Each structure stands twice: as structure tokens, then as C-alpha cells.
């Protein structure tokens, strides 16, 4: 641990908005992709069930 306190970590030596802005957007983008993939799977399963009923 190189920081003296938690507020030092958050301050990032004055670059907080750049550093946290990078890490937060990466995390949000990947979480968003996971949500989209879960939705796509559910939609595909629903379509497959509908195809089964018709045939």
C-alpha cells in the first residue's frame, strides 16, 4: 500500500477525474455488455420456444 490514507487514494495525486473516469467507464462498459448478453440469451431462448410451439 503506497497511500497514506483512503482520501489520498481517491485524490490520485490530483488526477482523480482522469484515473477514476477511465476505470469507471471500463467497468461500466463491461457490466453493460454482460447485461446485453444476458438479455440476448433470454430473447434467443424465447424465440426458440416460440419456434418449437409452431412446428
Amino acid at each position: 500500500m503506497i497511500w497514506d490514507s483512503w482520501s489520498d487514494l481517491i485524490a490520485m495525486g490530483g488526477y482523480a477525474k482522469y484515473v477514476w473516469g477511465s476505470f469507471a467507464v471500463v467497468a461500466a462498459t463491461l457490466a453493460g455488455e454482460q447485461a446485453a448478453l444476458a438479455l440476448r440469451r433470454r430473447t434467443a431462448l424465447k424465440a426458440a420456444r416460440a419456434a418449437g410451439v409452431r412446428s
Partner: protein
Amino acid sequence: MLSIRTSYTAGDEQARAGNWLRYAAPQAFFPLAGRLIPWLLAAALLLSAIGLYIGLFAAPTDFQQGDAYRIIFVHVPAAWLSMLIYLAMAFWAAVGLVLNTRLSSMMASALAPTGALFTFLALWTGALWGKPTWGAWWVWDARLTSELILLFLYIGFMALQAAISDPRRADRAGAVLALVGVVNVPVIYFSVQWWNTLHQGSSVSLRSAPTMATLMLQGMLIMTLALWTYAIAATLQRLRAIVLESERHTEWVQRYITEEK
């Protein structure tokens, strides 16, 4: 003797090749991918926990760039993966084009959105790094411009495939676009050597020792592995959805969805 031998090896080879080649069938690959995904996601979480700890808590502050340099722990892995995923996408698109294997083309389609996301992240984190170190969010230098072209190639690939309703024709057209675009990848990679760019040269290369602190390098490599395993997991998740969509009328999908309930 000769004829017996020939027939023997032919059958033998088929049996041996069959073990691996059967995964070229969507039906066989689907459950295999399903078993791999949870392990890949768990590995990605574990690796990013270690990588983030090193990057945010253990690695020292840079003497030139202060703590702004910490963006490197997501920027470089995202940029490497944006190029690597493109190469993988073009490879599978080419295999699909030449061998006419549907799963290969589906793999290319499954890679594209994740590749586009990593390209976006490389550009976004790059802008947030450029502002404090160069004083500009964006400059039209060769590295940044060629990475932006990469984003357009991914978007073009997805748009082209979405615009063509016949899946086989969509796969073929996408493959041609993906293969033409491959030329952009070495341009991105070597741009900092070929041209005088504002973007710094690489601190890590295959030919020489890296010019950065050990902890910085370790954090960056572990974050690369983390995002890499994540990218494989996300690609397989999307591939499974694509397989379900295109094979929904088949008997095995119908059997699968009744077991899923």
C-alpha cells in the same frame, strides 16, 4: 497389404480427427462453451482483483506523469485486445470463407462487438490520459487516427452483416471487409515507430527488456490477462446466443430448451 493399410489409416485418421473436428459443429460446441464460460468469468474476476490491487495500491507513482499514468492499467490492455480481437475476427472470418464452416463465421460475428467495445475503451481511456499529459483530449496523430479507423472497421463489419438478411451472404461480405481491414492492424502497432507521433512509443516489446518498473509491468500484464479471459468469455456467451438464434428450429435446440426449464 497396401490396401489393408490404407483403409486402416483412413478409418483411424477419421476417428482421431473426429474427436476435434466434431467441435466445428454448433451442436457439439454449444455445451463445451457453456462449461467454459463460468470458469473464464471467475478467472477474469480473480485476475482483475489482483491486477487492480497492484495497479492502484502497490505500484509506485510515476516520477514524470504522477498518478495519471495509472490509466495504463486499463488503457494498454484494452488497446492490445482491440487489435488482437480484430486479428482473431479476421482469422475466423477467413476460415469461414474458405472452408464454409458456419461456426467459424459465427465466431467472427461474436468477436466483433467485444472488439468494438475494447477499441472504444482504448480511445476513451486514451483521451482521459491525453488531457492531463498532452493538454488535449484528442490529436490527429497516426496512432490515434488508426485506432479510430479500427473502431469504424468493427462498426462497418457489424453494420454490413446486419444489413444482409441471408446469413451466408452476410458472412461472406463481412469476411471480405474484415480481411481488407487487417492491413490497419500493423499500421496501428507500428505507427509510433513509422511516424513522429505525440503518442509515446511502447515501453514493452518482444525484442527488448521493458523500460518500466517491475510492479507497473506486472500490473499491466495481469490486467491484460484479466481482460483477455473476459473477452473470451463474452465472445463465447455471444456465440451461444447466435447459435441458439440460428438453430432454433433444430431438434437439439428444442431438446436443450426443455432441459433448461
